[in-house]
């Protein structure tokens, strides 16, 4: 049976873990064997075998804890994406069930997006979601977070209210939004009843449904970046802000000329992430309309609808890769341009 660690060995291991130099050997340790062999019983004597056992144990523990997330990353990200890229170059034969190498999937999508109204609209919808994310949701979130950080009355309450949609499941939010606006039982319906008018059909298709999906995305997207932005804004030194106040700087000028430049790296990162609205809008339109209407179809939703269908997986994998190839350079260029607006300030 392995001998348990004595008190000195435990302390020594703790010091090692804390990066502290090992304690001076206790009296009598000078009698340790010259080859660094096992220390005699009694006071702790540093030696290679004791050190190795400790390190081995630590490495084993760390490895055990990292194994699960690492395996998950390999399977759920690396393997999935590599397989998806491979699939996008495969053509499925519906008779034999075999797949062959082909560029046909890409050719098909390029032609369809150019010629088919539904698929062309799909791309436009996805781009518009990205635009809404960048120029509506993100600025609103930034402004809202700034005022919350300024401790306006009720900021604590509003912070919770705005952040709640980020933690409530999307299907619940979609249901609440849709039921709240549907003309038969919702708030809008009841209000229209009071005035004796017929409420609009928000979710049956058409431009109004598209707009309602944007409204929904704005509502649930407002709180998403609040945590990170508030962390960045709170890091702005209070001395800088106080000095600005003393100089007579008003709120908006403080926001535009002090807070934004000083939080610029965080803002750039989150702004670039908001560009991912091209791909990340999948279930929002699906839950709003209870079916698929062309006015709200997005690339992500199209991929979801066909990803489970054998014979269609290769096609939508190509759609995803095609969209990535088109969007990725834009994202990189935008990131490069934004990095040049303000110098990074260390504080």
């Amino acid at each position, binding site marked *: 049976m392995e001998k348990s660690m004595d008190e000195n060995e435990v302390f020594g291991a703790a010091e090692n873990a804390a990066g502290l130099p090992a304690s001076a050997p206790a009296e009598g340790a000078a009698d340790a064997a010259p080859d660094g062999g096992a220390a005699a019983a009694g006071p702790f004597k540093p030696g290679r075998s004791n050190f190795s056992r400790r390190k081995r144990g630590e490495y084993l523990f760390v490895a*055990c804890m990292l194994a699960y997330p690492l395996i998950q990353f390999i399977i759920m990200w690396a393997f999935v994406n590599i397989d998806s890229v491979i699939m996008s170059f495969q053509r499925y034969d519906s008779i034999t069930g075999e797949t062959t190498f082909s560029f046909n999937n890409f050719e098909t999508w390029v032609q369809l997006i150019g010629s088919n109204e539904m698929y062309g609209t799909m791309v436009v919808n996805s781009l518009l979601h990205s635009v809404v994310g960048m120029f509506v949701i993100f600025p609103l979130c930034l402004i809202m977070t700034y005022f919350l950080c300024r401790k306006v009355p009720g900021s604590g309450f509003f912070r919770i209210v705005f952040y709640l949609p980020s933690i409530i499941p999307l299907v619940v939010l979609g249901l609440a939004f849709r039921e709240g606006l549907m003309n038969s039982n919702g708030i809008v319906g009841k209000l229209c009843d009071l005035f004796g008018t017929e409420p609009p059909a928000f979710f049956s298709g058409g431009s109004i449904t598209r707009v309602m999906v944007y409204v929904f995305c704005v509502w649930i997207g407002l709180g998403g970046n609040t945590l990170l932005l508030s962390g960045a804004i709170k890091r702005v030194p209070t001395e800088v802000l106080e000095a600005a106040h003393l100089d007579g700087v008003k709120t908006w000028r403080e926001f535009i000329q002090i807070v934004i430049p000083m939080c610029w790296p965080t803002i750039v990162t989150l702004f670039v992430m908001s560009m991912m609205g091209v791909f990340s809008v999948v279930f929002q339109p699906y839950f709003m309309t209870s079916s698929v209407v062309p006015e709200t179809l997005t690339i992500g939703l199209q991929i979801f609808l066909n990803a489970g269908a054998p014979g269609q997986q290769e096609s939508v994998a190509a759609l995803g890769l095609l969209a990535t190839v088109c969007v990725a350079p834009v994202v990189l260029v935008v990131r490069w341009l934004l990095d040049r607006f303000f110098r990074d300030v260390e504080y």
Partner: protein
Amino acid sequence: MRKVLCVLTAALLAAAAVLFAACGSSRGENELRIVYYSGGYGESWIQSLADKYMEENEGVTVIANPDTQLIDSVGTLLENRPEDFDLIFCHDVAWESYANRGYIYRLDDMYSSVNPYTGEVYGENMWSDDVAASAQYPDADGNMHYYKVPWTVGTAGIAYNLIVMDRVDQWLASADGQAYLATGNGHITTENADLARRWNRTAPVSYYELIQYCYDVAAANLPVDASDPTSGTITPFTWSGGGEQWQWDYPLFDWWIQLAGPDTMNTFKNFNDVLENGQLDWNDYKNPDVNVYNPNDPAKGDNVGWQEFKEAYALWYNLVAQNSAWTISGVADLSKGQNESAFANGRAAMTPAANWVAKESESMLAASGQEIDIMATPVVSDVKMSSDYTTLYLPNSAEYDTASVTLDAVRYNEANGDDAGKTIEINGKTYNRVSFTSSFGDSALIPAGAVEAELAVDFLRFMQREDNAQLFTRETNGILLPFDYDYSASYSAAGETASAWAESIFEINENSTKFNNYTQHPMMRNTALRGTARMTTVWYNNLYYYINAYQQPGSYEPNDLFGSIWGDVNESWATYRNQIQ
């Protein structure tokens, strides 16, 4: 301490791994595991069949699991967890794609051998050759194999509320009703008023009779709750504009095939790559004919075209889109469940429906005390319209005799080999009766890796026996299995009385030529032509226009809509064809 923690963590991970690996692996001997989609057919049918099977097969255990999300998970079950279940009942399954990848157990032996429960060859005891053929798929060498048993043979039409019809009759007998009957709207199909006209729970049989019933319901202006005048007014129609508008396809397809003939659907769904028997010609599937979408060419006879489908849409357009007051308020946002609730609670007289609606609405009907029935889609008999299909002329109108467009269902013609006895006589003319088979995608499958595949095969054989098939029909309020059995005796065989709903299902199926839109053509299955449809669709790119047309009739007139669709089809046709070359 650190070592202890390390060991504990490793042990925990190992235990978790073993636990997950052990999940699903333990099952008893002779245990048949079934998973079925839990929806409109209810759950009692499978429990009853399972109990009966266990009684007759000692030592066998049947475990049936309902799953409301099975449509989304069935692919995973077939590919990755075939040992979880031995028999799967589901709809909207793209089983063909799983079949040719080897994920589905072949049933050739079952279909070609004598069923010990019936004494007949299994494959010769199916509803029809068409139904049996739909269970086959070719392998790489072109040889056909059986992979499934169609779960049900569906029936579709227009459901109508019997209590509402009774109330309409009561109103017709009132002073207001009598005055109404004397007006033109009160007798659109006759020259003179008939003050004694009542429905007497008899469904309209012609398109104009359907129009007449709508006029009657609208004119009666009945409150939903007879004792509460503020409870809203009963409208002729309710439907789900908020997600299930496609249910209007049920009567629309019937009108289409009434106008064009039963062979039209086979030609259309197979893109004119069709054999004499109406099946897909697998030797010619790479040459689909775009003209199946041509709205300016008729399909009647041996032609290829979509004109009759446009005309069927025009029939719907003039019934619903041009009469927005005949539809329940707020239809655009009605979900499927809300629509069924509205119908089951007597808020409307009719709704487009298929055979599962009665079972699905069972509890709501019991609570509300309403009674429902289903009518065969009324026959298109001498329906007159303007040249642009936007104006319907009633028989008692001045424009009727000079109208430029006449829509008339295909007449019965024995020389054509039409189904004898499956006819209806209207105004002295004999028409073919046709009925769309809904639920054709419903499937009973055995995963290739099923642990008890032979037991599952035996259960499928067991279901084919007459008494068991009748048991299924009883338990589901009239839904039919795809076997050749005396379904109309399903209730009397057990000493029970069939509901009006079930009796109508039986009558429609016995006296109609059935057709369906199921196809295996790669042009539909494996190209972007089908849009967002799971399996097949008649509407191009699976785009529906019912709610749009209802809200903006002027923007969705028949000629404009189908002209636009035709243009879109032509523009992308080459791209779709390229996907199957």
